[in-house]
């Protein structure tokens, strides 16, 4: 019961209701009159819809949110339930978002130099991009790695590479995010031991490992094991981190790849959060107290072209998560309710035609991320549809964030779009659509059965096809691609080329590691790991031992695969 209802007696209340009804009737009449007047100015021939295909009306008014819950219930204050206005009370007034550029290429040495360059230029966190062999759990000298070593990320095949990657970068001070999923637990262990070698205990490590296998099956496709053993490894990491690395995020539940693969904003929101709830359920089923691990679950969203829809998506995400954790799982610790997220501008929105235009796209997307209240941000470089970014392109992308943070004024006040009739309506709509999609997933038997039926994959592919048709028909304008194409043929920017000697150098590094290590210790630790995989013991301590013995990534993968088997995707298009 609101304060007004409590304080006002019967007749006065009736008077208030009557006056409110009069006001609404007046507003409806004014709106109808305005709409009638608009008929005299026909609209442009343009689809007034978001990039996700959501119809957008010409005007939003208080009438759009008449049935919505109160300010206190639905919006509230930053840092307070349901966190619509932001996960922290003071947001960017206390601390700006972390400017964290995803980077990695060639060998650990070259990437180490790039990290030092980024830190010198004011970047405040690191984010590791691994090459495809590493993402799939293959060593650089494995036959399947041919032609892919160090090409679209850095090659890390053992602890030795991880040590080189962070040479001279103190891991007690820099927070590091690692985008790795299929073999996440292995790379995480390399990282923990690399820090150990620098003299730092796991208890002080800050950072994040992506470790979100569900969205790999759905969208990104860098998997190794089937869902059940893969989820067991993630539960092992939750358990190990809650006791040994309490400041570290053992997962970053990611919508980014779901969106990039073709999903709409609502699908990205729903699939990501539903995956998050699945991880919570698994942790609880494993016997963990929800408040022991939920505070360390972190998120990662895409920020696409439609400015307001993306802002609303981030606001809706926080509200849905907070309510689900409190109401569905009974979490008591507000830290469990608080959705913290990384954001990245939409790679898929970049164009190869007139690539300099991408600087502008990225700037708008970055502004949406800040207005949506992100905790960290990667801004894409203009040349990323052509190759890995050059230093110059990366510097411009980072400067874009700095201009936003220090010049634009958007960081001065918290959630400045709250109360906008349009943004609040969009937030409500996205929340409702996400909850409807949750029901569809539940009707299929949950996340894993829906993956096995190919449901997510088909939904995402259908959305991708719809967007392709819109672009090819010219209905969806893409500047420089289907409209305003003059000059699109001449690409006048430099691109980064990976030195072909990288693969050879990396093979040599592998040979050196294999020659230096104690083979008996390698065999012993791998056997112990296989045994843990067979039973119920936590795999993390066993993989840490493998890392210390300089077992390679593939050796560790292979030992686990012997027990767990490998994933076979349902193939369709």
């Amino acid at each position, binding site marked *: 019961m609101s304060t007004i209802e409590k304080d006002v007696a019967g007749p006065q209340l009736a008077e208030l209701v009557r006056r409110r009804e009069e006001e609404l009737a007046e507003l409806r009449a004014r709106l109808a009159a305005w709409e009638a007047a608009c008929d005299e100015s026909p609209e442009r021939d343009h689809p007034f819809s978001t990039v996700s295909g959501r119809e957008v009306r010409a005007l939003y008014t208080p009438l759009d949110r008449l049935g919505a819950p109160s300010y206190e219930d639905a919006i509230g204050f930053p840092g307070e339930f349901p966190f619509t206005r932001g996960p922290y009370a003071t947001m960017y007034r206390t601390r700006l978002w972390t400017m964290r550029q995803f980077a990695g290429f060639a060998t650990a040495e070259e990437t180490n130099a790039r990290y030092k360059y980024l830190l010198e230029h004011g970047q405040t966190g690191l984010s590791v991009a691994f090459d*495809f*062999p590493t*993402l*799939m759990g*293959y060593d650089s000298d494995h036959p*399947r*790695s*041919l*032609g*892919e070593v160090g*090409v*679209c990320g850095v090659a890390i095949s053992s602890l030795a590479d991880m040590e080189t990657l962070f040479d001279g970068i103190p891991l007690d001070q820099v927070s590091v995010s690692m985008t790795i999923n299929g073999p996440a637990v292995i790379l995480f262990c390399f990282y923990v031991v690399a820090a150990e070698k620098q003299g730092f205990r796991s208890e002080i490590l800050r950072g994040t490992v992506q470790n979100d296998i569900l969205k*790999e099956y759905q969208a*990104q*496709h*860098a998997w190794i094991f089937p869902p059940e053993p893969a989820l067991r490894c993630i539960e092992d990491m939750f358990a190990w981190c809650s006791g040994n690395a309490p400041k570290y995020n053992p997962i970053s539940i990611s919508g980014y790849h779901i969106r*990039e*693969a*073709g999903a709409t904003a609502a699908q990205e929101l729903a699939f990501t959060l539903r995956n998050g709830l699945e991880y919570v359920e698994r942790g609880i089923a494993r016997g963990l107290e929800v408040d022991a691990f939920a505070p360390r679950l972190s998120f990662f969203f895409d920020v696409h072209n439609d400015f307001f829809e993306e802002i609303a998506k981030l606001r809706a995400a926080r509200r849905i998560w907070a309510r689900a954790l409190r109401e569905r799982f009974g979490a008591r610790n507000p830290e469990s309710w608080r959705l913290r997220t990384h954001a990245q501008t939409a790679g*898929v929105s*970049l*164009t*190869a*035609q007139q690539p300099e235009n991408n600087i502008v796209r990225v700037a708008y997307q970055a502004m949406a991320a800040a207005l949506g209240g992100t905790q960290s941000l990667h801004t894409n470089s203009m040349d990323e*549809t*052509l*190759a*890995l970014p050059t230093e110059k392109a990366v510097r411009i992308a980072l400067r874009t964030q700095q201009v936003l943070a220090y010049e634009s004024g958007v960081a001065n006040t918290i959630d400045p779009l709250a109360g906008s009739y349009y943004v609040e309506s969009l937030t409500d709509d996205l929340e409702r659509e996400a909850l409807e999609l949750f029901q569809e997933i539940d009707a299929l038997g949950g996340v894993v059965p829906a993956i096995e039926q190919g449901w997510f994959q088909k939904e995402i*592919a259908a959305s*991708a*096809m719809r967007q*392709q048709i819109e*672009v*090819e028909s010219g209905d969806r304008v*893409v500047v420089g*691609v289907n409209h305003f194409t003059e000059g699109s043929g001449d*690409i006048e920017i430099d*691109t980064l080329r*990976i030195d072909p000697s990288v693969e050879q150098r990396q093979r040599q590094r592998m040979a050196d590691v294999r020659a230096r290590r104690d083979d008996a210790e390698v065999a012993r630790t791998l056997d112990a790991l296989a045994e843990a995989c067979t039973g119920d013991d936590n795999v993390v301590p066993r993989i840490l031992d493998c890392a210390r013995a300089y077992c390679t990534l593939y050796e560790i993968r292979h030992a686990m695969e012997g027990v767990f088997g490998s994933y076979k*995707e349902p*193939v*369709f*298009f």
Partner: protein
Amino acid sequence: MSDERKIRILVAKPGLDGHDRGAKVIAAAFRDAGFEVIYTGLHQTPEMIVAAAVQEDVDVVAMSILSGAHMTLFPRVRALLLDAGVDHVLLTGGGIIPEDDAKALEAQGVGRLFGPGTSTADAIAYVREWFASRPAV
């Protein structure tokens, strides 16, 4: 066109790259345009792709590569196709492939390679033209 047989195309994802948005859009667009489409699924080795091309007796192999491994994978698949005695198949594709690399691969006998922003209609028209003008086998 109705008296002509359907063109058979293998859409393939070689290497470790998991980005299949483009491959699936291309496969669906070719199917909708009346082609016989076989899609390999992800993470295929060159050997697996060539085996599928032979077994399915395709006219066209279209590879989607966004991983930067195109300079290794296109020549490898081409060499294996020739080893298998398949010299009448068009090897084409698309992805994140710099123009200079596309030219170098064309000089080695690979067909046209399509970059980001390509319309599916252009890719379909290219394959139709190639098929209409291919040497008799």
